[in-house]
């Protein structure tokens, strides 16, 4: 059977990352000319399964107490502080490439999130946040009555 809607949706979701990456690349190219670009840290990947979104971010070397995750309606906020190793007397840096400091990232999702069901894991320096859709907003199956 020919199912146009399904076909279109699949094609779209596969091409979305490409388009967004291209857009980001363009923004980065042009933003360098004028004022400084806003820095999005951490970088995220967004996955989907059964209507729930899964956001992953690479945050190496954090402790759980230093990561804050909050959800309001359809916005996920990841914030935290990356601490630097504090040098004791007699220690000196030869090279410092890992950037310490605090960060905040807001991610807007295309649906309202069931904040009670949000699940977050932090393993091997990778944060995985599962955001299920609010049950009231889930598509409802409508029964057709035959009279």
């Amino acid at each position: 059977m020919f199912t146009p809607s399904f076909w279109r949706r699949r094609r779209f979701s596969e091409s979305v990352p490409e388009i967004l990456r291209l857009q980001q690349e363009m923004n980065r190219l042009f933003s360098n000319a004028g004022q400084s670009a806003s820095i999005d840290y951490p970088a995220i990947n967004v996955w989907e399964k059964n209507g729930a979104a899964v956001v992953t971010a690479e945050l190496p070397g954090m402790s759980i107490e230093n990561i804050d995750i909050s959800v309001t309606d359809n916005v996920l906020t990841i914030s935290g502080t990356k601490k630097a190793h504090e040098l004791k007397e007699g220690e000196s840096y030869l090279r410092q490439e890992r950037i310490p400091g605090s960060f905040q990232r807001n991610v807007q999702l295309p649906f309202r999130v069931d904040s009670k069901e949000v699940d977050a894991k932090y393993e091997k320096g990778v944060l995985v946040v599962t955001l299920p859709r609010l049950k009231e907003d889930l598509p409802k199956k409508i029964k057709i009555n035959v009279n």
Partner: protein
Amino acid sequence: MSEKELQKTENAAAAEKIRNVKTFVPRVDIYETKESIFLIADMPGVDEKTVEVELEKNILTITGWTDEGKLKDHSLLFSEYETGDYERSFTLSDEIDREKINATVKQGVLLLELPKAEKIKPKKIAIKAA
């Protein structure tokens, strides 16, 4: 701080892998104490089973690989970062005591302790008055 500094850098110099994955340069901090040199490398996605530290002659190589960072049965909607292997090499001076190198991995961060060899530790030389 530019945006580029916060993004992963691809290791173009690394030998191409048979597996079709990208290789990244882990960011490192290196600091020195009187006894040792410490190296901290950010390698998100690796654990003690998927990281390797190799010392050949005076070249220290750290490698790590991740399970592609893919979530099972999930479809990727939006992507800002890629996952792959890590590789970076450093040239060590001879002053490292190779036998006592210590490596630990915690939350995707590799910590290497490279103890300085006894003979080069600074020694105070007493000067006698003639």
